[in-house]
């Protein structure tokens, strides 16, 4: 495989691993906010209006930013009725063809995300809630997560190409 591709795969892998290792800690952040709120409300009778949305935003960041890393961990299930019986090369070949559909999906996710961000930034969009937080930051984070996922899918596409040619990119 050309050097550029090898470099690309290496960098994307490293970046997504870093981002994923960060976002896996967001579980603690969600847990912390929710525990704080339940104590504050039940014991001190002091509920907060920012709790639900902050937790929701954390959740969106968690699974979208973690997406690329979950691909590296190979955490996504497949229907392996036929796939499970194939050789590694044949699996890679099948993935190469079907990856175009996956990329199409991610490209449109990304396009939707970009236009959502543009709208939120231009009109200073806020959420329709008493707290009314601006939506631009979370939309940017979500779109970044989708972009990272797309980059990772492309990296895996290259890895599959290498597998077919009997090489291995690490």
């Amino acid at each position: 495989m050309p050097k550029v591709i090898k470099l690309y795969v290496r960098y994307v892998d490293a970046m997504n691993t870093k981002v994923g290792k960060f976002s896996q800690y967001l579980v603690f952040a969600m847990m912390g906010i929710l525990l704080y709120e339940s104590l504050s409300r039940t014991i001190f009778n002091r509920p907060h209006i920012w709790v639900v949305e902050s937790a929701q935003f954390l959740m969106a960041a968690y699974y979208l930013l973690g997406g690329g890393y979950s691909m590296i961990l190979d955490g996504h299930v497949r229907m392996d009725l036929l796939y499970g019986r194939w050789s590694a090369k044949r699996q890679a070949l099948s993935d190469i063809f079907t990856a175009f559909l996956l990329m199409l999906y991610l490209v449109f996710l990304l396009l939707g995300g970009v236009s959502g961000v543009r709208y939120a930034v231009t009109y200073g969009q806020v959420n329709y809630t008493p707290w009314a937080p601006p939506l631009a930051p979370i939309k940017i984070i979500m779109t970044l997560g989708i972009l990272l996922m797309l980059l990772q899918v492309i990296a895996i596409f290259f890895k599959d190409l290498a597998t077919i040619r009997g090489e291995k990119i690490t």
Partner: protein
Amino acid sequence: MSYELIALLIFASMMVMLLTGQRIYGAIGGVATVFALLLWGEGAEGMPFHASFILLNWYPLLTLPLFIYMGYMFSESGIASDLYHMFHVWMGPINGGLAIGTIGLMTAVAAMNGLSVAGMAIGASLALPEMLKRKYDKVMISGVIQAGSSLGIMIPPSVVLVLYGMIARQPVGHLWMAGVFPGLLLAGLFVAYIYIRCKLNPSLGPALSAEERQMSWGQKFRLLRAGIIPLVIIFSMTGMFLMGITSLVECSAAGAAATTLAALVKGRLNRQVIEDTLRNTLSVSCMFMWVILAALCFSAVFDGLGAVHAIESLFLEKWALSPFGIIVMMQLTYLLMGMFLDDTAMLIIVAPLYVPLVIKLGYDPIWYGVLYTITCQIAYLTPPFGYNLFLMKAMAPKEVTLGDIYRSIIPFVIVMCIGLAIVMLFPEIALWLPHKYFAR
């Protein structure tokens, strides 16, 4: 082209894409995008991302990563091995006792977890090797663990019922309460099945030898203390939620925190455990969330074709089914689809079509949620696509072959179908407890 034909075409292309072995979320999302672009005019390109905002506002879904975290932390914490030891000693002396004890363990684990992952991990790493060592029939115990761990989505807390509650707009508290007795009924049926089979053929599950049974009653009773920590966890989570102290999402956070504390108390909490738990949690959560994201987009495209109306007219006018016949038909289609489809995706795509019809026919959507969950449990086991099958393949020791795993589920699927029929014929099994508890 008629709408029915288009709907059929969409479904067929999704099945073909799934068969190629592409990741479920990619296959569903890709097909949804293509048909959105083909069928929908302006705004079609925004449909995939729009789903992410629907998902953002599904607040109860926050329970998903927290319950998954809890499951992994629980299986690392060593609480399960104490519990297993307790069941081992108390149930060991009878034929098939360890398998019955494993169902007991799985029921306890199910009361502390909302998915079947934790049960599978504990069953495959703890109970399976012990039973193999004592010459239990490997086909039977492979089924015991898969069927037993599926109780995780029925006995509260249950993530599947949370998801159903969101789609059907039903209160989760009622749904969880409704899951208690059907869950115990299924556990009871499993125990009865194991007991009868081992009575007929003791070589399937030999009783513990005399040396192994030597233990004073004092020691035996001290083992029961293993049940204390689980009771504390169940109280801090499900108990506080049902008493109305914590909200649904807060209760999952409380459960996760309580389990972490329990691991700390047991001296099992170290950097490696935390790191592994967090990584596994991220991996499984992302898998579910991306599947749900794609399925929501698919469901929106599908819904736009008027699929709800099409199904209604098919069942009511074309086939002229009785109301109960429709419920039976729905369960049959679920069972069939559950073999091939991802169960989460199935719920998101099919439930919006069925639930309005169920309500229109005058049935209780809470009861229907329980029926759906039992079919989901069965779907977890039935090949070619089932989460418990995948987990079993990944976790089982070498002597348990793929053929063993496939063969092992047959009797348990039959037992679960009997359980499903019982709950269908006697809705009170599910509805008595929530009516009693929430009656003003």
